[in-house]
């Protein structure tokens, strides 16, 4: 006797056409993307987006970037490459707003250890071995120097033009005494030893102080045009970000 062939019905839900399934998937994707974007704090991915976000947060409607530095980085915990810091100095009228975004994969957020700084008239900060100074007056300067007064000595740095109104002053020469080394040694406070399972870490903390910075602007023949009295913090000078 022949075996009766019976196909057992399996309920798989309503069978959707391919077009319907595409619409369903794209709708789900859009929803997931919206939740992801909100969960990440609405990350901006472009310089314009970052500037627009800060303009809204600081109520600076005509904020324009005057200097942008894209700095590729890699954390040991990064599985994929592509991390980038975007350091932006922007101006609104006479005021400067400087901030740094940390972008990696789909996340892009303000860098946690560099709070945005809003400064009136002129801006000065140190970041990863370079001192930055910005002022509208720099547009007419042929050369600029910055004298940074530390506890024991004054370092005079030669500036290089980074944009119309921003000069950069590299201060780490890699060998021999430089501003970084001087600050690192002169502002040490407490030594510490941390012992943990598997090893010991020794280190020290530093006094966080604002150092006076005198920025002098010169014309083509070396005549001083203007002098700006600014400050820079020791933690920024010794920082890596």
């Amino acid at each position, binding site marked *: 006797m*022949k075996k*009766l*062939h019976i*196909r057992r019905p399996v309920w798989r839900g309503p069978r959707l056409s*391919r*077009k319907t*399934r*595409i619409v369903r*998937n*794209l709708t*789900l*994707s859009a929803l*997931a*993307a919206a*939740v*992801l974007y*909100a*969960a*990440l*704090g*609405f990350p901006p991915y472009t310089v314009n987006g970052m500037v627009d*976000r800060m*303009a*809204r*947060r*600081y*109520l*600076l*409607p*005509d*904020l324009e970037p005057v200097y942008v530095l894209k700095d590729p980085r890699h954390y040991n915990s990064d599985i994929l490459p592509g991390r980038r810091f975007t350091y932006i100095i922007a101006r*609104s*009228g006479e*005021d400067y707003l400087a901030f740094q975004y940390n972008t990696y994969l*789909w996340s892009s*957020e303000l860098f946690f250890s560099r709070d*945005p700084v*809003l400064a*009136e008239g002129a801006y000065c900060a140190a970041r990863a071995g370079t001192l930055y100074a910005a002022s509208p007056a720099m547009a007419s300067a042929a050369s600029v120097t910055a004298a940074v007064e530390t506890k024991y000595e004054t370092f005079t740095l030669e500036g290089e033009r980074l944009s119309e109104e921003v000069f950069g002053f590299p201060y780490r020469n890699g060998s021999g005494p430089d501003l970084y080394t001087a600050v690192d040694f002169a502002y040490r406070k407490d030594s510490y030893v941390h012992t943990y399972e598997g090893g010991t870490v020794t280190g020290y903390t530093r006094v966080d102080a604002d150092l006076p910075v005198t920025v002098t602007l010169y014309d083509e023949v070396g005549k001083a045009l203007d002098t700006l009295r600014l400050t820079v913090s020791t933690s920024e000078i010794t920082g890596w970000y």
Partner: protein
Amino acid sequence: MSEQRSWAFWCARVLGHVRFKPDRKAIERELTAHYEDHRLDLERVGYEPDLAAERALRAMGDADEVGRALDRAHKPWLGWLWEVSRVLAVGLLVVTAATLLENSLFTIREMLGRTEDQFTWEAPPSTASCAVTAYGTLYLSPGDITEEDGRYEVALDLWGKTADPRTDFPWIMPYLNIVDDRGPIPLGQADEDGVWLDNYMSRGWSSVCWGWTRHQMVLSLRLDHRPQWVEVSYPYGGNDWVLRAEWEAEP
């Protein structure tokens, strides 16, 4: 040619017409199921296996015609779009779930909290001082004043409505200029024990409502006197607004 080889040949001929290759296996399974069902049905009603296979194959129709029809139904662009949409949906759902569970800036609870605040906020009173800025509207209203040992804690109720949910409440608190009828009120802070500073002047803020576009905060001034009025301004970016809170004189 055996019936099995005939079927394989027919099937291959049909599939040769289908340009979207990823669908070919599924089509083959479907066609085979139809063919097998028909063949087994014929065997069940008494056909010899070979004859049943031949009849079932003939009933499947012309291979080229079926192939062309299936190719029209399985358009390559639609097929690829389906594949992409599938990968996209699964990928985004996995990334979203992982982000929410692991390291999102806003957790689900915070997002729900924000949504709740957005809809339950208490609108500023009509008497509140108002400043319309390029990116939102700010309101200021006098809050409670409490006195203890000659020290006054003065509350200023501050509201912010932004046009863009991504904006957040403006991060302008540390940069506000605050003056009262006796002069400027500097930015200060209590020490670690919460004890007021020697000049008894400091200001702090706490959030009452933090929605997506609607925010309410309380700005607390700690003063050594009871103010008659307080003015708040923000002297950056061409912002020329001044918010003013006035208290009625003490009876």
